[in-house]
């Protein structure tokens, strides 16, 4: 069994042991999501039956994935649209403002650079929940209460720091001599950024984009108080309305959750390797 030979030349018994522990770890970490998946294909009667059954008795109710869009608790299609609009625009905004800032701070010295980077680091440690009381009143005063724009700006601001930080470390890895050669040929900063640096640092940009997107997708605290109309709320807020009801339609909660979770898991899996590198630089929160 050649596949049992590992880089550290561990004995066959050790390798099999590791694989068994690996299976156990996978089971533990996937268990809640398996429960979700199985719950999402039960009937309402099954999921509320006492005592419960592990598996659906009356066969898989995949039709739940069609009927879950029309429930009295919350307008799910609107909630999905809100989640998508807020996440997409917040991510675009982050990309737009973080890329030049990351490039500039990685390449040049300027007065106030340390102040700027300090602000970035402090922002990275904060999250909307810390300032929600202030943001809530601010959005009332600015007439942005209960708008997508408010949540786009908030999500962008709080995720900007990570994007600047990770892209900064990628730009810093591009040899300066490449920039200088282009500059001698007469290329402006913006052209050097677009034609020389961006193609080299795209893995950093992809990492920043995915991480930002997933973080916006899952934001909860600020959306909870700033978005008061049911149609404006993202899925994370909308789903809490099911909790604590007399007979919760758990099969719909879990169906919607699966639809919301699977895409971001795939996105996160794409940057798995780079998360390790990013964390080594102390970049991810």
């Amino acid at each position, binding site marked *: 069994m050649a596949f049992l030979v590992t880089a550290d030349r561990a004995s066959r018994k050790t390798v099999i042991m590791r694989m068994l522990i690996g299976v156990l770890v996978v089971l533990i*970490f996937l268990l809640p999501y398996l429960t*979700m998946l199985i719950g999402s294909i039960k009937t309402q009667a099954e999921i509320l039956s006492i005592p419960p059954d592990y598996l659906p008795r009356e066969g898989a109710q995949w039709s739940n994935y069609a009927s879950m869009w029309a429930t009295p608790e919350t307008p799910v299609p609107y909630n999905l649209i809100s989640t998508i609009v807020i996440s997409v625009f917040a991510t675009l905004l982050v990309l737009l*403002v973080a890329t030049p800032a990351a490039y500039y701070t990685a390449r040049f010295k300027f007065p106030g650079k340390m102040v700027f980077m300090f602000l970035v680091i402090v922002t990275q440690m904060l*999250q909307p*929940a810390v300032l929600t009381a202030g943001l809530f*009143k601010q959005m009332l005063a600015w007439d942005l209460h209960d708008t997508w724009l408010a949540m786009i700006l908030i999500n962008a601001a709080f995720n900007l720091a990570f994007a600047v930080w990770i892209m900064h470390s990628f730009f810093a890895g591009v040899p300066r001599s490449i920039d*200088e050669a282009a500059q001698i040929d007469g290329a402006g900063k913006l052209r050097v950024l677009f034609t020389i640096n961006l193609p080299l640092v795209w893995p950093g940009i992809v990492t920043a984009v995915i991480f930002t997107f997933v973080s916006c997708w899952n934001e909860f605290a600020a959306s909870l108080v700033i978005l008061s109309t049911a149609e404006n709320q993202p899925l994370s807020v909308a789903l809490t309305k099911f909790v604590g009801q007399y007979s919760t339609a758990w099969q719909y909660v879990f169906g919607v959750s699966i639809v919301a979770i699977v895409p971001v898991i795939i996105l996160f899996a794409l940057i798995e390797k780079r998360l390790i590198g990013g964390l080594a630089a102390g970049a991810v929160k």
Partner: protein
Amino acid sequence: MSTSLQVTPAPAKRRKRGNDSQSLLSSVPWIGPALLLILAMVVYPAGYMIYNSTRKISSVGTDLHSVGLDNFVTVFQDPALPRIMINTVVWVLSVVVITVLLSLALAQFLNKPFPGRTFVRMAVIVPWAASVVMTTTVFYYGLDPNYGIFNKFFIDIGLMDEGFGWTKNAVPAMLVSIVVAIFVSIPFTTYTLLAGMQAIPEETLEAARVDGAGKWKTYIFVILPQLRSALAVAALINIINVFNNLPILKVMTGSIPGNSADTLMTYIFKVLQFDRRLDISSALSVVNFAIVVVIVAIYVKSVKPMQEV
């Protein structure tokens, strides 16, 4: 492309140092938008929140008049506060300590080669990518005393005789919330420590082996000291995240009346949402923010992220 951003390359003799120095004005188009966003959505609301904590604000959000520090007097005389602070300390300490210990073991394991390791690593990141609200919801459902699937499992393996209402009373509800918080905190922590482990030079471990150091000796005297900065990052960021976590306790303990299962963060949101006291909520948030600032200061001092700039 805007030509105004064009710079003349510095003369060759200045190249060695200083050609990368720019004036404040020329940095504005590059840094300005990011700075503006941080100022408007982070710095300004922080200041505004401090200002609001000294005001009397009506339930619809109208600023009425100054009350000095009266809101803080109200906050500190609140009979619910001692229990909330104790809950907060227990919540943060237990989650962070257990998370870091479990993650150390898991990172050590995931750093060893074996077939299928990539898949195991992928499974570990799932709770990190998934919405915390949604993950917590499954636990809430599973722990229901009557139809909860986790309760049924505990009965089936002989741990319990009948279903238990984990989420119905403050203490057990806090307990299971702590378990959920550990579960969702492990992925980030494990990956941080894994990054630290992969940065340890192979020669160091080789040297320990040649010197005849045993597995545990190598771990305690060679690996752990090298993990110091990764541990500091993991612990401090977890402290901040757990301290400011809302969704887990909101879902798990939200239906318990009173404040016996509240932390500072869930209390802030109850005062803001249900009592509609923006002023008191701001004062509580300022207290919360002051604690966050202290943790950030410790982070900046001990991890020294500015060195890498």
